[in-house]
């Protein structure tokens, strides 16, 4: 049981650090609280949908920004969608880049948009890695017969 306690502590520390680093906000905790016996994989499923969404939207933005005549409304529409999903999952870093991104779209500033695209791609990759680590820690705890601690 000592091993399980260690893993649980590791999970709590890791989870807390993600919040402290400003990568995740309270909305993620809200989602974790919604997970129950009826939907034990709820958070993983939502995260997977989010990653799929991110990839699709980032591709859309990249393609739109490559055009000779950039359709900034189209880029903005994708950024708006990404801002929405990231907000729903608690991916606050991604969301913040989206907010800046929208300003550049409004200003029709291609350079600014490209910079934001780079940033959003970076933040998304970072988040994906961190969440995958978090989910792995959860799996390890469950496999060892422990339960996932609730983070307040």
């Amino acid at each position, binding site marked *: 049981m000592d091993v399980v306690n260690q893993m649980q502590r590791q999970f709590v520390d890791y989870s807390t650090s993600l919040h402290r680093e400003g990568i995740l906000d309270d909305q993620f905790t*809200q989602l974790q609280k919604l997970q129950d016996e009826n939907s034990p994989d709820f958070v993983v499923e939502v995260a997977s949908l989010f990653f799929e969404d991110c990839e699709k939207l980032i591709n859309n933005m990249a393609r739109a920004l490559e055009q000779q005549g950039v359709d900034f409304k189209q880029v903005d529409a994708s950024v708006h*969608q990404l801002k929405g999903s990231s907000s*729903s999952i608690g991916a606050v870093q991604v969301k913040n880049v989206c907010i800046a991104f929208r300003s550049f779209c409004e200003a029709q500033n291609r350079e600014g948009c490209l910079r934001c695209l780079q940033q959003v791609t970076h933040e998304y990759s970072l988040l994906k890695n961190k969440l995958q680590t978090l989910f792995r820690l959860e799996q390890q705890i469950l496999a060892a017969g422990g339960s996932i601690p609730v983070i307040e």
Partner: protein
Amino acid sequence: MEVAGEVLQSGSSQELHVLAVDDSYVDRKVIEKLLKISSCKVTAVESGSRALQFLGLDGEKGSLGFNGLKVNLIMTDYSMPGMTGYELLKKIKRSSAFREIPVVIMSSENILTRIDSCLEEGAEEFLVKPVKLSDVKRLMKDRVSRGVTEEQEGRRVDKRKLEDDNLTSSSSSSPLSSSPSTTASFGCDVSISELLPSPPHSSKRAKLHDAD
């Protein structure tokens, strides 16, 4: 709440059937979970046109969905490609078969003119995303008390009066305490109460506190 859900399952006439409309997969999944946890039956669709299809507004009559369940509440995202939530709201409120179904608008953007137009078109509430469990629970509470009042009075009660009542009950469960992330510096609050004397907008004001 989860245990109560089990109990309510058997008396399924008590369960609200909610039609959720949102083009985002992530948001659909989240709202579906929030509603299920609140003991509702959920049908989640990705667009306004799919919602109208489900309601049978594009051909057949009646508010029976494909599986024959009456829709008690519609929750729709505002910004959707094709038909916006606002346009869906208008279509529903202008249909004789469905105008009684309460419609709640959800939006990540906290724009006063948007909120105003939605409320004017007959939206029940305007929720700022991300929608929380406390928002859904409050909706359910309002729905249940309203349903009871309507039954007792045998007719649709004046909305304004109801919102007055809801204000007194909802102020005790302060939205501020249930959303720790809110530090809304909303300078517009004062001007709302000055410009708009009617109670429905005050309940809107309470919701604005939930904004980022």
